[in-house]
């Protein structure tokens, strides 16, 4: 049982446990052990229960694992329930006054008198409360064989310049480590140094998207705060401040906190129209509020990038839980016949690289592009390869400048001169008397003039359909895992990726079931998606929503005779997806 352990820490939010958990995560990472962390926090600021799960996996599995091996029970409010939920044989480290030892006979108990442990460190009661949380780090380190040196490095890193805080926390961790030395060791789990994280980084998806936007050369950011997207823009702002000022101090970007999401989207369209790389970030409720503008963007053909860090809906829903529930409503966002391009990163690496692509796609296709991530991907920490510098120059799309206009003698904004459905545009401010055109959400002809004519309308709508259809192969292509020759396929996207990979291994190991797994990364779908379905008898579409939303888009896209091959594995619990649930669901269907 080395390097295969899931640890859960139960505390209250606002109690400083976030730092402790980061220290644990980083210590394992520094020991070269693949690790992942999932923060389960409530939608308030302080005092409500929080759980943090850390999984160390020698096999590199980073999906959430439902079965907890070691529980650190610090929260009196949830301790009994937390213990009740453990599998037999699990280990419980707990604050001694909680007296959990009687609750179940099939567990290993380690009571620790945390108050006593931290008592010697400081006289300040408030501080002691925080330090209790660093004390459990020491206890866990001792019991799991995490190297104290790495813990100390991690503490140094987390507390950075704040010398006093660092020293106090070091003391607390050591005190916990000492205290745990007196516990008789009766549990099987331990970790040991590996070499599986060398060169890797640890980062959350929101930061990765922010960095993508930064290196995409975003210039206008308009946003309105909403969990779980807030940190995307806040991180981006920090990076912009660092990397996007000229020597004279002037900024090459503008970040504006708008009054709401309607305004944020309006600003994005205004800026995109005027030629900027513009973006916003939001979550479900914001997407709903952007509906009207999204239709304008589609119909008037204006670039812009919208990050939707999905949380659990409908409505306000569970703001601090993860889901993939905005897929279909975003793809069809707005009244009338609309189609919005979706980009679906499946890792923090892709949060970076596909965000860069999103800006290219938006300008190339002159349309809003929605990058859908979710709370799990966006707010949790993930191991990743270092971000790769973009090799391709920016694609700013079809823009006519003064000189081209002079040569051409004019242009027609919505004329399909290149056969790809994409017209040429000019930017306001272009110093040429023929540069101007009139942008509107009402019916218009090729020259952008107002028109109510049926034939003009229909031709324009057909061109729009062609344009979006033409994006299929220009969008990030789906990624295949498996030989491609299995009879059973799995199709998934976004943050489901690690669970599905692990599930594939479980299916093979437990039931001898070989599968191919296609990870979709955009809508409209590449034709490879159809081919994948065509090549498999059954395709399980795994997603984190109730209604099987991507599956629905897929069914509408497939040749109808392939519809019967699809099987939905669609659930939303608010928790990051785990492999076991998917494996069980697939096996149940395979066996029935």
């Amino acid at each position: 049982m080395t390097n295969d352990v899931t640890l859960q820490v139960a505390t209250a939010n606002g109690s400083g446990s976030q730092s402790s958990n980061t220290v644990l995560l980083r210590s394992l990472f520094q020991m070269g052990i693949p690790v992942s962390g999932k923060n389960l926090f409530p939608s308030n600021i302080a005092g409500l229960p929080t759980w943090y799960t850390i999984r160390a996996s020698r096999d590199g599995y980073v999906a959430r694992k439902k079965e907890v091996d070691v529980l650190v029970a610090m929260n009196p409010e949830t301790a009994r329930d937390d213990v009740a939920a453990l599998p037999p044989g699990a280990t419980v480290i707990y604050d001694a006054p909680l007296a959990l030892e009687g609750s179940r006979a099939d567990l290993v108990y380690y009571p620790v008198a945390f108050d006593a442990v931290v008592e010697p460190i400081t006289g300040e009661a408030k501080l002691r409360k925080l330090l209790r949380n660093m004390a459990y780090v020491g206890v866990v380190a001792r019991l799991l064989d995490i190297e104290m040196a790495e813990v100390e490095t991690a503490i140094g890193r987390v507390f950075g310049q704040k010398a006093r805080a660092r020293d106090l926390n070091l003391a607390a961790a050591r005190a916990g480590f000492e205290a745990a030395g007196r516990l008789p060791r009766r549990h099987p789990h331990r970790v040991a140094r590996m070499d599986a994280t060398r060169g890797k980084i640890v980062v959350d998806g929101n930061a990765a998207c922010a960095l993508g936007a930064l290196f995409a050369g975003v210039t206008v950011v308009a946003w309105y705060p909403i969990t779980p997207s807030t940190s995307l823009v806040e991180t981006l702002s920090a990076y912009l401040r660092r990397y996007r000022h000229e020597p004279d101090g002037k900024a090459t970007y503008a970040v504006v906190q708008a009054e709401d999401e309607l305004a944020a989207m309006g600003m994005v369209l205004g800026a995109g129209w005027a030629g900027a790389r513009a973006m916003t970030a939001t979550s479900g409720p914001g997407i709903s509020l952007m509906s009207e503008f999204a239709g304008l963007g589609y119909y008037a053909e204006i670039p812009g990038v919208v990050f939707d860090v999905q949380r659990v809906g409908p409505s306000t829903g569970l703001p601090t839980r993860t889901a993939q529930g905005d897929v279909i409503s975003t793809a069809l966002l707005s009244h009338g016949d609309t189609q919005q391009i979706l980009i679906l990163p499946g890792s923090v690496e892709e949060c970076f690289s596909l965000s860069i692509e999103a800006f290219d796609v938006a300008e190339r296709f002159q349309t809003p592009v929605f990058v859908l991530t979710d709370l799990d991907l966006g707010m949790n920490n993930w191991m990743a390869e270092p971000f790769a510098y973009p090799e391709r120059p920016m694609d700013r799309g079809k823009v006519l400048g003064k000189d081209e206009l002079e040569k051409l003698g004019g242009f027609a904004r919505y004329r399909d001169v290149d056969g790809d459905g994409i017209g040429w545009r000019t930017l306001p401010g272009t110093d040429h008397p023929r540069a101007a055109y009139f942008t509107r959400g009402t019916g218009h002809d090729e020259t952008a003039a107002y028109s109510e004519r049926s034939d003009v309308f229909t031709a324009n709508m057909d061109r729009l359909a062609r344009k979006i259809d033409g994006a299929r192969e220009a969008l990030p292509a789906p990624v295949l895992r498996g030989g491609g020759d299995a009879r059973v396929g799995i199709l998934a996207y976004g943050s489901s990726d690690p669970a599905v990979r692990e599930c594939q291994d479980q299916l093979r190991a437990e039931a001898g079931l070989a599968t191919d797994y296609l990870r979709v990364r955009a809508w409209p779908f590449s034709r490879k998606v159809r081919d994948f379905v065509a090549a498999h008898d059954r395709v399980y579409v795994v997603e984190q929503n109730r209604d099987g939303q991507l599956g629905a888009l897929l069914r509408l896209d497939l040749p109808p005779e392939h519809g019967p091959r699809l099987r939905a594995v669609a659930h939303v619990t608010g928790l990051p997806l785990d492999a076991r649930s998917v494996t069980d669901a697939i096996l149940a269907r395979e066996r029935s």
Partner: protein
Amino acid sequence: MPPTATTAPRQNRIGLTVVDYRGGKTTLCAGCGHNAISERILEACYDLGVASERVAKFSGIGCSSKSPAYFLSRSHAFNAVHGRMPSVATGALLANRHLLALGVSGDGDTASIGIGQFVHLVRRNLPMVYVVENNGVYGLTKGQFSATADMGSVLKGGAVNDLPPIDTCALAIQLGATFVGRSFSGDKKQLSAMLKAALVHRGTAFLDVLSPCVTFNDHEGSTKSYAFLKEQVEPLQEISFVPAFEDIAVDYDPGTTVAVRMHDGSQLRLRKLEAEYDPSSRSRAVARLLESAGEETVLTGVLFADPDAPDFLTRLGTVEAALATLPERAVRPPRAALDEVNASLR
């Protein structure tokens, strides 16, 4: 300039004729106040020698919001969705701070559905000309009351408005606009002078222009009819505008006339008709407007001016060049930056 004897069309200081400032043929009703305002805008741009290519026209939805199609066809235009012109204009200006933004909206578009974005635009002091063509009704949807309809005003069908109007000028002054005026589509001279001042102002220049809807709100009982307004409009000042490129040194009496020096050196001269009115005080201007609320009299003129307040774009501290067209090297940080970032995440 003395009139010349030749028949060559008159040219403005950048060598363009009035025709160069025209737009498409109006599709509004004959006699609609909005058409007169379009004319004034076109003239003001001609007179000032505005380069149409620098202008970006904005509007929302409504008869009024259609009007940007009827002037300055050499300028880009963005006819947005209903009530959301402010955010679109904000975005465009963020992208390109050198645009001269000229917005035309309606009272429904601004005061009903659009009041939220309006409030925030004004609060930011976004540098743009923002004209509301105010007829007290929704013209395009056939004449329902808007939020600027006066208490007691009567619709054609007999319905009486019993809600107080939103005074968009008072609101704009209270919330931070830096040039605010009210005029009447029928008052050529006043409107022209105010439009010119608005065009050279750097900040939110808000003009509420009463603009009768001849089809749905020009009858007896309406407080936005031509007849009513001709009777009730009461200018606070007699206004003239001396552009920066003309000779400013003409005399005026500082006792009766306030001269406002605009940001670009132009001068706005306000010969006082109401002696106590002081367009430099937000609190007194708002108080005066609130006092007149409920009265039939419609005060017009320059209600507030603060030509030197910092505008939104200036405050952002961006580079001088338009963000939209910065080259890749200016906006994509170098490889070393990414290396640094990666290192920090290790």
